[in-house]
């Protein structure tokens, strides 16, 4: 068991634990903090796959910007008390069964395919580095890249219009 495998198992356990704690947590603030743990673990996976640009973007955009936004919204609403009313226990049970069935079916379908079992991921490779991705982004993908600025502009305008007080 070399260092890559140890890191893989550690990061996988961290991601799954964080996801489970996020879903089951009572306090929304703790849920946000556990989701940040999941994002850090996924960034570690990106570094193991040698996708360093995506690892940094994931940390900055998700763990940095989006989660701070969630945290601010929760603090503005004063939701830190446990005020989620208990709903029907059977509905909750049905939701768990549905999620577990989805996992079971996907894993079962995966076990049927022998082709995926043999291919291994090796370390190394240059495609995830920023000097390569940036070159492709500004040549082949320059039109979608510029269109995202329009998407962001409409998102800004939409957020301001929706969140505006009084009408």
């Amino acid at each position, binding site marked *: 068991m070399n260092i*890559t*495998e140890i890191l*893989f198992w550690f990061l*996988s356990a961290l*991601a*799954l634990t964080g*996801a489970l704690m*996020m*879903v089951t947590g009572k306090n*929304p603030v703790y*849920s946000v903090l556990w989701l940040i743990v*999941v*994002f850090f673990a*996924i960034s570690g996976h990106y570094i193991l*796959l040698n*996708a360093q640009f*995506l690892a940094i*973007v*994931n940390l900055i955009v*998700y763990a940095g*910007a*989006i989660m701070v*936004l*969630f945290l601010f*919204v929760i603090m503005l*609403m004063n*939701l830190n008390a446990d*005020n*989620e*009313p208990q709903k029907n226990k059977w*509905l909750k049970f*049905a*939701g*768990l069964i*549905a*999620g577990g069935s*989805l*996992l079971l079916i*996907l894993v079962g379908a*995966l076990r049927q395919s022998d082709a*995926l*079992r043999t*291919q*291994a*991921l090796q370390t190394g*490779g240059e*495609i995830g580095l920023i000097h*390569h*991705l940036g070159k492709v*982004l500004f040549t082949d993908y320059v039109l979608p890249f510029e269109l*995202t600025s329009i*998407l*962001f502009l409409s*998102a800004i305008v*939409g*957020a*301001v219009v*929706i*969140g505006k*007080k009084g009408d």
Partner: protein
Amino acid sequence: MPINYYIILAVSLFSIGVAGVLTRRNAIIIFMCVELMLNAVNLLLVAFSKMHYTAAAIQNPASAVGTDGQLFVFFIMVVAAAEVSVGLAIIVMMYRNIHSVDVNFLNRLKH
């Protein structure tokens, strides 16, 4: 690492997100579970991109196969950031109107 370990990890994260959306009633936590599902898909895209690169690099070490997958992950992150800003604005407006973020109160279309 074999690719099916990554597939199982991503599928597990996705299923946890689905179960969270179905069981929780807090709109913010449902929204966070959607983000978790997006991230599981991103992880799977990066793993497949790496798998195709590893297969292609045996013949040609300078090949750039798999770049498209990583750029798709980048665009998914961009769209997710725009989605979060609009979605949180909707949740804030909902809290201002009904003074709760419980999605069970949003059943006016039923009556």
